Structure formats: C-alpha cells, structure tokens
C-alpha cells in the first residue's frame, strides 16, 4: 500500500509501505494492508512507518490526521520532530 506523509510546509515522505503505526486519539493503532477506510484524528506521539523493503522510519508528532482509503494512506502531521 501507498502512503503520503504531509506537513503544512512540505511533503515529508511518499512511497510503498507494509504498515504504519499511528497514535490515534483513542489509542495507538497500526494500519496494515487492506485496512478498512478510516479517518482518524491523531494525538501527540510516535509514528512508525515500515517501508516495503523492511526498513522503518520513525518520528514524533504533536497532532495530525490520518485517512485510509483503498490502500492509500494520507497522513497529515503537525509539529514533527525527531525525524530520522
């Protein structure tokens, strides 16, 4: 599945991934392939993206939103820090 990570200032990442763990406002959850369509607000916390090759990417956010539809993940984040 595909992800696009957007911050208000620029696009942070886009590409093929196998999973992404996000800090949902009602608790952390992980989006894997064929996840049901969802729109969720995010609380502050860590995001972990597992890329297609197995490599992972982590950063923390202050708040944000995630939308999943037909294996397209859009992650809108604010206050990104500790980007590696």
């Amino acid at each position, binding site marked *: 599945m595909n992800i696009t990570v957007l911050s208000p200032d620029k696009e942070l990442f886009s590409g093929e991934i196998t999973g992404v763990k996000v800090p949902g406002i009602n608790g952390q959850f992980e989006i894997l392939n064929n996840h049901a369509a969802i*729109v969720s607000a995010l609380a502050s916390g860590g995001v972990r993206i597992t890329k297609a090759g197995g490599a992972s990417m982590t950063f923390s956010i202050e708040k944000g939103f995630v*939308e999943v*539809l037909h294996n397209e993940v859009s992650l809108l984040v604010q206050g990104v820090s500790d980007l590696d």
Partner: protein
Amino acid sequence: MGANLKEVRDRIKSVKSTQQITRAMKMVSAAKLRRAQMAIQQMRPYANKMNEMLKNILSNMEADDASSKFSAEREVKNVLMVCITSNRGLCGGFNSNIIKGVVNTVNEKYAEQLAAGNVTVMCIGKKGMDFFGRRKQYNPIDTHVNLFADLTFDNIAPVANEIMDAFSAGEYDAVEISYGRFKNAAVQFAEVEQYLPVETVKPDANADANAADEKSNKALYIFEPGKKELLEQLIPSILQNQLQKCCLDTNASEHGARMTAMDKATENAEDIVKELKITYNKARQEAITKELSEIVGGAAALEGA
C-alpha cells in the same frame, strides 16, 4: 553652455545608476518570487487533503450537527481585522490596496463598531503597522508584525490559535483578513476574506451526485473519534492552514508586485536617459555651432582689418 552640458551629463549618470538599482531589485524579486511560489505549492497538497477530509466527514453527517464553536454567528460587537502587508515598500500600490481593503470594509460594514471604538486591527507586516499605528481609532496591535521573517507553519499556527481563542472567548464576534491574493507574477488582488465565524459548514447537497465519480464513497469510512469530535479537531487545523495560505500568498504577491513595479521603473529610467541624451546632443551641437560661428566671425574680422 559648458555648465549646462555638464549638468545634463551628471543627470544622465545619476538616472543610469538608479536604473541599475531598480534592475537589480527586479532580479532579486524574481528570485524571491520563485521561492515564495514554491512554498505555496508545497503547502497545497496538505490543504487539499484537509479539505477533502472535511468534505468526506460532512457528506457523512446529518444536516444539523455540522456546527462548531467557530461557526457561531453572534451579534457583531467587536471586530478584528487582520491586515497582512509586506515589510518593505517599493512595490507599487500593493500595500496601500491591502490597507484600503481594511479601511473600506470597516467603513462599509463596521462603521458603528468603529465609532464605538470596537474595531481592532492586527497588523502582520510593517507597512500596515506604519499606517494604522498613527490611527489610534483602529486600536492597532503589533504583536505579530514580524511574522514575515519566517513563514513556517510553526510560526503562523500560534497566531491562528490566538485569534481562534479570542473568538471563542467572545472577545471578537467577527474576524476578517485583508491580504494580497496571488494569481500570477503579474496579477495580484487585494482581497478581504471572512475568517471567523467560519461560513456555516453544510453537508454538501451535491455530495451524493459527485460521490459516484469520486473514489471517496459515502458511508464507508470509520470515523475516530466521532464525526463531530473529528470536525472539532479538523476545523482549527483548517483555519491555521488558511492563515498560512494568506501569509504565503501575500508574500508571493509582494514580490510579484515589486517585480512589476521595478520593471516599470527600469523602463522609465530608460526613457528619461533617452530624452536627456537628446537634450545633451542638442546642447553640444549648439555649443559647437556657436564656437564655429565665433571663429568664422573672428577670422572675417581679421581679414577685414
């Protein structure tokens, strides 16, 4: 005649050096414009996505629960005008048009509030502050004048939050933004936009019709937390984004306007130099003719003797 010649020569020189400055300023603005445009483009996907989400939520909502504390229409007693101008001048009528936008809107819509001293102008950018700082009836506040130094979201969001907090606390009942809308390098408009209360967000009646051709379909999303809570989270973010868009637009417009103004100034200087050159050549020719006739006259006088 000699003194006159020198005078014209000096003027040509000074006009030429002015022209060099205006040309350099045009180049600088062109470069800055490119960067400002890039910033707008980079912000756009985020804003688009956010609006898309808003639409998705609204099309899944019942008609009447789509209101939030930012859409509350109250009797307008206190007005906040946000005046986004540039920090520097020399860009034609750009800043004065934005300022005029504020003044006209206040005169047309909020004349009573102004008379009661209930209009506040928040200036972002020095030029607006220069104007309103001398007009105390507008209660200018200058806490964010220097926002233009760094137009990142992290800097702009707190300003948006401050405005939203003041609105929900009832300090202001209406907030409008006057800014320079960027169309392209040559065209910018001064525009006044209502910021708060947000125009009542209504579930789109056409959403059903459009849903078929869009891939976002109605009623298949899981919303977490609820739709209403989600909306309450989303709207402040959209408002922050809107303020950032206004600032970035103004920034790009400023450079566009300066580019046009400096281009005209350069052309103007060219015309003046041309005219001065003609004057100079005429004066020079006159001097030569006069000298010649003096010599000829002198020779004739000698011959006659």
